[in-house]
């Protein structure tokens, strides 16, 4: 068994020394085959080993991954399922663990995330098929949180006439419970035009703004931005939907008494108008219309300067990126049109199931958001756009692989690791490279490709893998305390020293 190396040191009284943010778990690589070894290697934000858990068949180890009577329930029941196999490339099957669409802000839909501060940081498989399907609803509906330094909650939007909006934990499992079993209320947000889209919403807590992309369901899009929005993180933590309301014996009608619902009902004046001063224009420049994925989904980011960026996968075409001017900074909210088209060949999205389509992750400081989608079939290749939240500057990459994929994983304060599903065999191990957003956004022009995926071979022979032969690893981004990267790093505590003396 591995061990946790991140510790919270107890000092006198109740004061604790915060954890070193870099010693928190960053991601786990997963590999295996049920009748042989299977397991996870977990790295921290120094790229040091945080934990290892590897099992084998025949009860030789601390746990077994075979479908025998010594194994866990899921290993026994789902052992031969493709969802937990890494013996084939993501391009060759719709279910393999390494599909890039398994990864997003909520972690990996095939794995329960490990705990950051208690217990074991190593993830664990979910019951394949049904388990992944259930968790995929959250991956479909989760929305971006640009600029968020405390990424310990999530907001969700479903497609529909009145904006089926939810606020909750950063958990795909919890979202399934809330979504399917009505264990938390759904908020109806009055639409400015027509209807909301799956996950195409963006909450900027620093600016107290909520951007919602609306559609007429005809591949036309019109954004609206709400101002002075209540603190959604606060609601996500308290889950007291009657916050501030006098408690009473009788039942309170939710829609007329919940402060958050009431706020949306009573503040349509705080929503940008459909036209005229302060409004945003309709989307322009979409290269082609294909399926439900590019009809009812997208990844939206509201930037600090009120510019909007929408990344959309267009199945069997590629992806496009639309950007809007800022009514306040640019003087109008016109759509700039498509600032990037990426195209190659056959690919699949939401039409094939909730487990497919575009996803996003964001850096620990929330200053950069990476939206991405597969460029080949269900989860191989990569279209990726990274958006700078401060001003809406975009960098893109278009990697055409029919076999493997590369997934962005938040790393350190404002970087991504670009993790490759390339075969770990031949003693290569797990391969990835690094993308330093501040560096690359500094030395690259807007709407260019600064080589996000090249040189993933940099880590060859350094990071072992749980399976000993052909294996295409899956990646599980960890859910850690992002706030530590925003209040415990030297640039924050000691101040940024522009000149070394």
């Amino acid at each position: 068994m591995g061990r946790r190396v991140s510790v919270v040191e107890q000092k006198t009284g109740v004061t604790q020394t915060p954890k070193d943010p870099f010693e928190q778990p960053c991601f786990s690589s997963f590999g295996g085959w049920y009748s042989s070894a299977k397991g996870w290697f977990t790295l921290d934000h120094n790229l040091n080993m945080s934990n290892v858990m590897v099992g084998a068949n025949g009860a030789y180890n601390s746990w077994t991954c075979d479908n025998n009577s010594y194994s866990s329930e899921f290993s026994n029941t789902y052992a031969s399922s493709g969802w937990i196999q890494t013996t084939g490339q993501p391009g060759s099957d719709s279910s393999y663990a390494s599909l890039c669409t398994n990864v997003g802000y909520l972690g990996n839909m095939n794995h329960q995330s490990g705990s950051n501060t208690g217990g074991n940081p190593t993830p664990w498989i979910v019951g394949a098929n049904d388990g992944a399907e259930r968790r995929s609803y959250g991956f479909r509906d989760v929305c971006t949180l640009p600029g968020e330094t405390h990424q310990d909650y999530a907001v969700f939007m479903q497609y529909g006439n009145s904006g089926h909006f939810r606020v909750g934990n950063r958990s795909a499992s919890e979202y399934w419970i809330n979504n399917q079993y009505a264990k938390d209320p759904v908020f109806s947000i009055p639409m400015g035009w027509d209807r909301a889209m799956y996950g195409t919403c963006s909450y900027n807590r620093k600016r107290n703004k909520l951007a919602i992309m609306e559609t007429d369901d005809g591949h036309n899009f019109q954004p609206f931005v709400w101002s002075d929005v209540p603190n959604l993180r606060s609601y996500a933590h308290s889950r007291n939907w009657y916050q501030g309301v006098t408690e009473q014996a009788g039942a309170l009608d939710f829609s007329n008494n919940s402060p958050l619902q009431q706020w949306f009902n009573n503040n349509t004046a705080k929503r940008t108008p459909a036209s005229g001063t302060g409004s945003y224009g309709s989307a322009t420049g979409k290269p082609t219309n294909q399926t439900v994925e590019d009809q009812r989904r997208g990844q939206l980011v509201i930037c600090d300067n009120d510019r909007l960026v929408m990344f959309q996968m267009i199945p069997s075409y590629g992806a496009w990126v639309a950007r809007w001017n800022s009514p306040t900074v640019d003087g109008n909210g016109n759509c700039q049109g498509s600032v990037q088209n990426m195209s190659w060949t056959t690919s699949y999205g939401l039409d094939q199931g909730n487990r497919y389509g575009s996803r996003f992750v964001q850096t620990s400081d929330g200053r950069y958001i990476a939206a991405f989608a597969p460029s080949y079939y269900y989860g191989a290749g990569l279209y990726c756009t990274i958006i700078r939240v401060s001003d809406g500057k975009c960098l893109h990459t278009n990697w055409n692989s029919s076999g493997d994929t590369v997934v962005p994983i938040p790393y350190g304060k404002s970087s991504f690791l670009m993790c490759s599903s390339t075969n770990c065999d031949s003693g290569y191990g797990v391969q990835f490279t690094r993308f330093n957003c501040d560096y690359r956004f500094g030395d690259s022009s807007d709407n260019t490709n600064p080589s996000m995926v090249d040189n993933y071979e940099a880590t060859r022979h350094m990071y072992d893998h749980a399976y000993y032969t052909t294996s295409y690893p899956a990646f599980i981004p960890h859910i850690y305390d992002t706030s530590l990267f925003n209040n415990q790093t030297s640039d924050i505590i000691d101040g940024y020293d522009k000149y070394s003396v």
Partner: protein
Amino acid sequence: MAYLIYNKNEKHVTHQLDYDPREGVEDKYNSGELTYMVFEGEKIDTENDFITNYRLNAAGDGVENPYKSLSKADQLTKFQDDQAKVYAPKYQEHALKMLKMEVKNILEGEYSNSSWRHEKATEVDLINGNNDAMKALALEKQAIRDKGNALETEIKALDPTVAADAKTLIAYNVTTKMRS
């Protein structure tokens, strides 16, 4: 002018850049460890041309698309056929390795000397005063070995340089075959 990035694993161009991604990479790794090669050339019109059909030419000093005159739909078919041939040798090697492991796992697990099958057969023979149960067990084990040998022959008979066989190899599930 563009830099065409040829992936040595995939054996085709994966993307094109307006700069050389080798910039800043230590020279000693340039020839050996890099997963890609870089060719300077005309920018590929991806709207009308299939970028991943660009593969190394015979001399190995450039990339070319032999299917450029075909429609994009036909180019996709050609690409998938050719790519299956690229991936298939690894899948064939893996299937053979998996097969041996699968047979070994069954014999050493379900039929080992400490397995319940073995224990039961031993005791049944003890009770009956013969070796019929152990003989039946041995025959079961032999059938497993025979099945493994038959599948090995089947896998080796698939030619990874033929598109149809290559696709069969990529989809070949040793466990399902052994357990069926």
